[in-house]
């Protein structure tokens, strides 16, 4: 029921010029939406966009996200539009005939309120069902027999990768086979952490999954196009969280087989370069061996990344700098040069020994 009002307010109401504030607000949102859709079309400049999915998990999330965004944009247009309309249509007009009267007081309406309860519930149901489908198709996907198993262990601030059935241990650069949709060979990642919480996020391949100490999580990826997929740790894990980068190489079958064969070999111990041989001696007489493993030698430490084939990686320091002799030298001299707060201490080697160790490490292909 409405109430009539015909009494002048006891004093002058406060009246303000009508500003187009709500239009400007709307405009800001529309601009944002245009930009968002524009970005979607430039994966080249955005190697980690979630809108350029590669592989089944990322694709199913992408499909769901388009549905969700369509619904959300629709709601915004309707509700936002009504709001905008109300603000313009019902603004006070101080110079009109009935300016001094209060408008009709409306206290509620059962029908209207019921409808705007029921409609949102229906929307929620639709969204919920669509979402549940993707949750189960991703998390409860049947695992094919030819899937690759990789164990991922998160460390402060690097990634350890173990291929248990292949006898490979490596760090920071993950190689997986390209998956043919007709004969899927997904890679199943079994993940935990050696210290604090981390999170494995390569947006183009899949959603992220956390690495938590004393807990094992699993996820899977199946890139269908060869290439390098980037990502980084997505759960704050300490000082160098920002530089715990991810590099996933989806290799063609031939490249993948070659990589496996290379990785399965123990470390090179016969060097053409005499500096490398001398560097091996320096390495093995210092504390390096207590943190790092070089397969087939006395270095069997597990606190730091496996260095057996470090020379064949594209990057060091968990993806944050290119793998060049100069960078290796600088890192070994003082890790804080690239990653202040990294857990590897400066090794206090003299310049000569540094050169030798650098030669050694670069030749560990």
């Amino acid at each position, binding site marked *: 029921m409405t*109430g*009539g009002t015909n009494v002048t307010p006891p004093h002058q*109401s*406060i009246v*303000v*010029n*009508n*500003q187009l*504030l709500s239009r400007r*607000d709307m405009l*800001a*949102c529309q601009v*944002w939406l245009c*930009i968002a859709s524009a*970005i979607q079309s430039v994966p080249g*400049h*955005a*190697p*980690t*966009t*979630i809108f350029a999915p590669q592989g089944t998990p990322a694709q199913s*999330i992408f499909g*769901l*996200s388009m549905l*969700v965004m369509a619904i959300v944009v629709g709601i*915004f247009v309707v*509700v936002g539009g009504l709001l905008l309309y*109300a*603000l313009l249509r*019902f*603004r*006070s007009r101080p110079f009109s005939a009935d300016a001094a009267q*209060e408008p*009709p007081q*409306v*206290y509620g309406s059962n029908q209207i309120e019921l409808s*705007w309860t029921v409609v949102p*519930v229906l929307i*929620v149901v639709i*969204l919920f069902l669509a*979402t*549940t489908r*993707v949750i189960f198709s991703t*998390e409860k996907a049947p695992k094919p027999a030819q899937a690759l198993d990789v164990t991922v262990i998160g460390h402060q601030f690097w990634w350890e990768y173990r291929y248990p059935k292949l006898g490979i241990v490596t760090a920071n650069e993950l190689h997986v086979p390209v998956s043919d949709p007709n004969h899927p060979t997904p890679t199943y990642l079994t993940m935990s952490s050696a210290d604090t*919480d981390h999170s494995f*996020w390569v*947006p183009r391949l899949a*959603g992220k999954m956390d690495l*938590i100490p*004393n807990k094992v999580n699993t996820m899977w990826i199946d890139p269908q196009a060869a290439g390098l997929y*980037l990502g*980084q740790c*997505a*759960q*704050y894990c*300490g*000082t*160098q*969280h*920002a530089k715990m980068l991810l590099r996933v190489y989806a290799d063609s079958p031939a490249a993948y087989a070659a990589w496996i064969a290379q990785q399965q070999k123990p470390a090179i111990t016969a060097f053409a370069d005499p500096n490398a041989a001398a560097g091996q001696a320096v390495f093995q007489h210092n504390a390096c061996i207590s943190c790092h493993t070089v397969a087939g030698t006395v270095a069997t430490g597990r606190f730091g990344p496996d260095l057996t084939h470090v020379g064949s990686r594209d990057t060091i320091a968990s993806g944050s700098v290119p793998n060049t002799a100069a960078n290796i030298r600088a890192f070994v001299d003082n890790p804080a040069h690239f990653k202040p707060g990294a857990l590897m201490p400066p090794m206090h080697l003299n310049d000569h020994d540094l050169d030798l160790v650098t030669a050694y490490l670069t030749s560990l292909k």
Partner: protein
Amino acid sequence: MATQTPIAMTTDQAAKTHRLFFDVLHDWLTTVDHKKIGIMYIAYALFFLVVGGFEALLMRIQLAIPNNTFVSPQAFNRLFTMHGSTMVFFVGMPILFGFGNYLVPLMIGARDMAFPRLNAFSFWISAFGGILLYFSYLGGDGLYGAGSAPDVGWFAYAPLTARVFSPGHSTDYWTLALLLSGIGSIGTALNIVTTTICMRCPGMKLNRMPLLVWLYLVTSAMVFVAVSPLTAAQIMLMLDRYLGAHFFDTQAGGSAVLWMHFFWIFGHPEVYILVLPAFAFANEIIPVFSRKAVFGYPAMVAATIGIGFISLSVWAHHMFTVGLGAYGNTFFTFATMIIAVPTGIKIFNWLATLWGGKIQFTVAMMFSVGFLFQFLIAGLTGIMLSASPFDWQLGNSYFVVAHFHYVLVGAILFMIFAAFYYWYPKMSGRMLSEKMGKWHFWLFLIGFHLTFDFMHIPGILGMPRRVYTYEADRGWAIWNMIVSSGAIFQAAASLLFVYNLIWSYFKGKVAGPDPWDAWTLEWSTTSPPPAYNFAVTPTVESRRPLWDLKHPEDPDSNYEM
């Protein structure tokens, strides 16, 4: 006195001023008056708003370009920890409790809060908590020289907070400061609930209370069940760090996920505790400047209570990537989506309140309109995040940062600004300058949208949060630059606002008791109210007692549903 020599007179004058200053100081330090305590809470929060904002500015400068070296990684990690902890516990909670403290007794026709001394104690212990947290910048160096301000993030995930990963005392400052603030929050909430239930003036049945009072009642009830889990978890953390307990010690079989559960059982209701007061302000301000009663009062009450209950069951949507399992993810997706229904009802009710009204665009109303659009958007990005697979991509990225700042700044802070423009006249007797207010509004709006609209994009492009820098080849740089530029506008607008507060106190137009032609009891006393609030305890017969007075031929009591 006229026969005294000039010199003696001057000394006497000086002595008087001297005594006056200390009298005033003593009065404020020992007051148990809810109005003064409310103002102290608000002033305290404003100070920390500037400090927390400065921390944000430093972070945005660091992130404006990739691989920047403006601050060290360690300093950046402290900045985001302190920024988050400050804004939630030492800006959000105090300012909302400040307004609640001031307004609730006035709106129900009471003389003060139920427990005035507890009220004062709650303020001072919270204030001490804030000072303790900031002392950590100076005094936190502990073992291994690894101290200083806490750097574990505002949610302090285990086991990063264990002694082995966070030696020194920085984490302890975080724990203790928040523990104290929590005690203060529980005290104030206790006061608000007791006052609301036990001290309403005659005739003010529960279904005649202003909606602000309802919202504060629900908020306070939520504080009891939300803050306590955090208190419990922090006690456990201290036991781990100092008595060798193993609550979150993964080496001894403890669970890092358990901390997350406890924290988010607090953390999610906490954000509703922060937002419900913003709704409370909207429920008072929007009707007055639409010149209409709020649409659907019973539904608003029911929706609020619904939000209160449902918010206790959605917490693990902060943990979708933790490995809860398909059924866990499904349940929390459902609960989170369902909470959109009562929240949407509120937005629709505000829309219906505006509909058919005579909308006056005072500065308070402008901020309220900003709130309406921005809260709508924030809720919609929340729906995006509620779909758990979508959250597997967007979670822990800058998209989430954009979403929650949209709520905290775009909705809550905007309504706090509105509340200032609306109730400052009541508290001080003067109007805030509308001209400066408009500058404040537009500058802040531009800055807000520059920063937080564009912040969604790096998230979509794969930028995680809590990173002190980022790679140049990811395509994030231009967006971060735009985001950082908005911070400057917001800073300028905030400083202008503070100036407005101070200037208007001395030069603002005298307000009188009821400058907005409003309808609730606080407008029936002088501005500012006398210490005792009401000379005679009022009696009410409807939800809008002053409307009934002003329109005796058509009182609200005839129509209320």
